[in-house]
């Protein structure tokens, strides 16, 4: 939206009559028409439906005024792995290219109830596996801030949709950093909620013990508002927890913030300098910064790349060409499966299914999967111990700014870019990524991010510290 207006600003403008929902949607569609042919943030744009929804929203705003639901008339974009009834849900995979969602995800339902207008579904790495949004079967998404670079992934389409000004906020999903990394590369706020804070019902599953949906926004206040609307227990997801499951995480006057400095060795010098500048800002706001040792955080990445393929190989077993999605005919049923999956899945998906099958096979189960789950437990313990002394953990969101399209060739170097983000998913704690300065590459100022992690159920603490850091 014009001048990167926030949801709060648009709400005020809608209530005062300065803007109308129809006007906002026309503005949104105009931005998409002008720029999305090149940026490719969206896979589908729901122009006709959203125009009709906007007319209804204007009626509601007129009738109810202040008491209209909080997102009435606010345009939002949804990642392509979140089901919206009657709309295509492709996860940017060929195997789901023609799949129409038969029901709404819980997050969709809740945002709709709050009055949100869905402009379109966004591009992503296929099945959310990737850090660049290049592995989509449709097209690569470009970073609106520098179109020679990637927007990050896997929720790169959602981030680009916000950064290009077509919507004030979008929903993504985060399994190992897929909301936070694009937030960092596109200069946005991104939240990965506590595991179980938000229902996974209606999200196309990747790693079921990791996946969480979260917002990409321009402000912490907006992220907080969307989180409060989508969070909460859900009968359709047994892992969505009730209030009281975790102890309250209180807000404080000033926080004791732990930085695992040992992990910062080796990140690019100017990214480090931007991080150090953010640390100084936090100190200036009265917080105390301490060095915290979290040696297992590094091993966490290895554990993640054992458990994640294991869960993927199991979750993606459902794509068999029988119940939904692509079907390629073979000589018999077994060949139907083999051909459907061969043509329906891209390289990274096949790679992870095979690796997952390997680490789960009987001879290697204990050595890989069993060991990785133990590391996960040890990490939970390590973080619990750390949180006894500190209120939150601060790291850069990523070791680099956005890289060039096509730059990351081999899978392992791509995996290593997730070093700071996967811990929160492995142990289930919430993490908030915020813009944290810029660095210059090829004469362009590119954003870098900082990330706060808090104990389970600590979103409010993250919002508190984030708003103060951002001066909201």
């Amino acid at each position, binding site marked *: 939206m014009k001048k990167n207006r926030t949801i709060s600003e648009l709400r005020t403008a809608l209530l005062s009559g300065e803007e109308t929902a129809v006007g906002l949607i026309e503005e949104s569609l105009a931005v998409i028409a002008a720029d999305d042919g090149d940026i490719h943030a969206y896979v589908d744009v729901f122009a006709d439906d959203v125009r009709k929804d906007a007319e209804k929203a204007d009626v509601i705003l007129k009738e109810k005024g202040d008491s209209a639901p909080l997102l009435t008339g606010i345009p939002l974009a949804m990642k392509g792995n979140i089901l919206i009834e009657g709309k295509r849900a492709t996860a940017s995979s060929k195997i789901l290219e023609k799949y129409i969602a*038969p029901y709404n995800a819980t997050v969709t339902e809740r945002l709709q109830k709050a009055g949100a207008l869905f402009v379109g579904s966004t591009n992503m790495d296929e099945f959310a596996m990737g850090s660049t949004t290049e592995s989509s079967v449709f097209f690569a998404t470009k970073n609106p801030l520098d179109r020679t670079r990637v927007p990050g992934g896997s929720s790169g389409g959602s981030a680009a949709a916000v950064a290009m000004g077509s919507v004030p906020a979008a929903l993504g999903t985060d399994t190992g950093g897929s909301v936070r990394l694009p937030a960092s590369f596109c200069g946005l706020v991104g939240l990965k909620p506590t595991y179980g804070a938000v229902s996974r019902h209606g999200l196309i599953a990747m790693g079921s013990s990791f996946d969480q949906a979260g917002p990409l926004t321009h402000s912490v206040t907006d992220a907080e508002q969307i989180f409060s609307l989508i969070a909460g227990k859900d009968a359709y997801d047994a892992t969505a927890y009730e209030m009281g499951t975790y102890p309250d995480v209180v807000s404080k006057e000033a926080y004791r913030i732990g930085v695992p400095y040992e992990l910062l060795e080796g990140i690019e010098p100017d990214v480090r300098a931007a991080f150090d500048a953010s640390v100084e800002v936090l100190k200036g706001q009265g917080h105390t910064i301490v060095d915290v040792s979290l040696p297992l955080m590094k091993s966490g990445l*290895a554990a993640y790349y054992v458990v994640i393929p294991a869960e993927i190989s199991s979750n993606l077993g459902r794509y068999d060409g029988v119940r939904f999605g692509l079907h390629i005919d073979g000589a018999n049923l077994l060949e139907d499966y083999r051909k459907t999956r061969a043509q329906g899945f891209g390289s990274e998906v096949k*790679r992870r299914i*095979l690796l997952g099958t390997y680490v789960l096979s009987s001879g290697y189960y204990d050595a*890989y999967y069993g*060991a990785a789950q133990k590391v996960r437990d*040890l990490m939970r313990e390590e973080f619990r111990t750390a949180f006894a002394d500190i209120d939150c953990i601060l790291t850069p969101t990523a070791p680099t700014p956005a890289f060039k399209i096509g730059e990351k060739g081999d899978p392992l170097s791509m995996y290593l870019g997730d070093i700071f983000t996967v811990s929160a998913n492995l142990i289930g704690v919430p993490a908030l990524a915020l813009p944290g300065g810029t660095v210059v590459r090829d004469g362009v100022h590119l954003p870098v991010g900082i990330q706060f992690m808090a104990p389970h159920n600590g979103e409010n603490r993250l919002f508190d510290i984030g708003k103060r850091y951002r001066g909201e």
Partner: protein
Amino acid sequence: MKREDIIALADLSRIELSEEEIERFSKEFDDILAYVQTVKDIVEGGAATPALGAVANVFREDTHPHEAGVYSEALLTALPSRKGQFAEVKKILG
């Protein structure tokens, strides 16, 4: 990783691989597995395994099912091959 092993994994995964994919994966998997092996060292390093924390069963009352058939049509339209109310597959038994 040997190409036979890649082919065996592809068989288990019900995915047909091209020659080029077999080549590429057999090279890449060595690097990836060498990297993720570090999880073994940590556990073998004698670190204790704490009891699993926040895991508990979640139950609900077995009541209020939705009306039979209300979602059937929506789900059936997604079938690649349909015969009436059934998904059609090739013959399995000889």
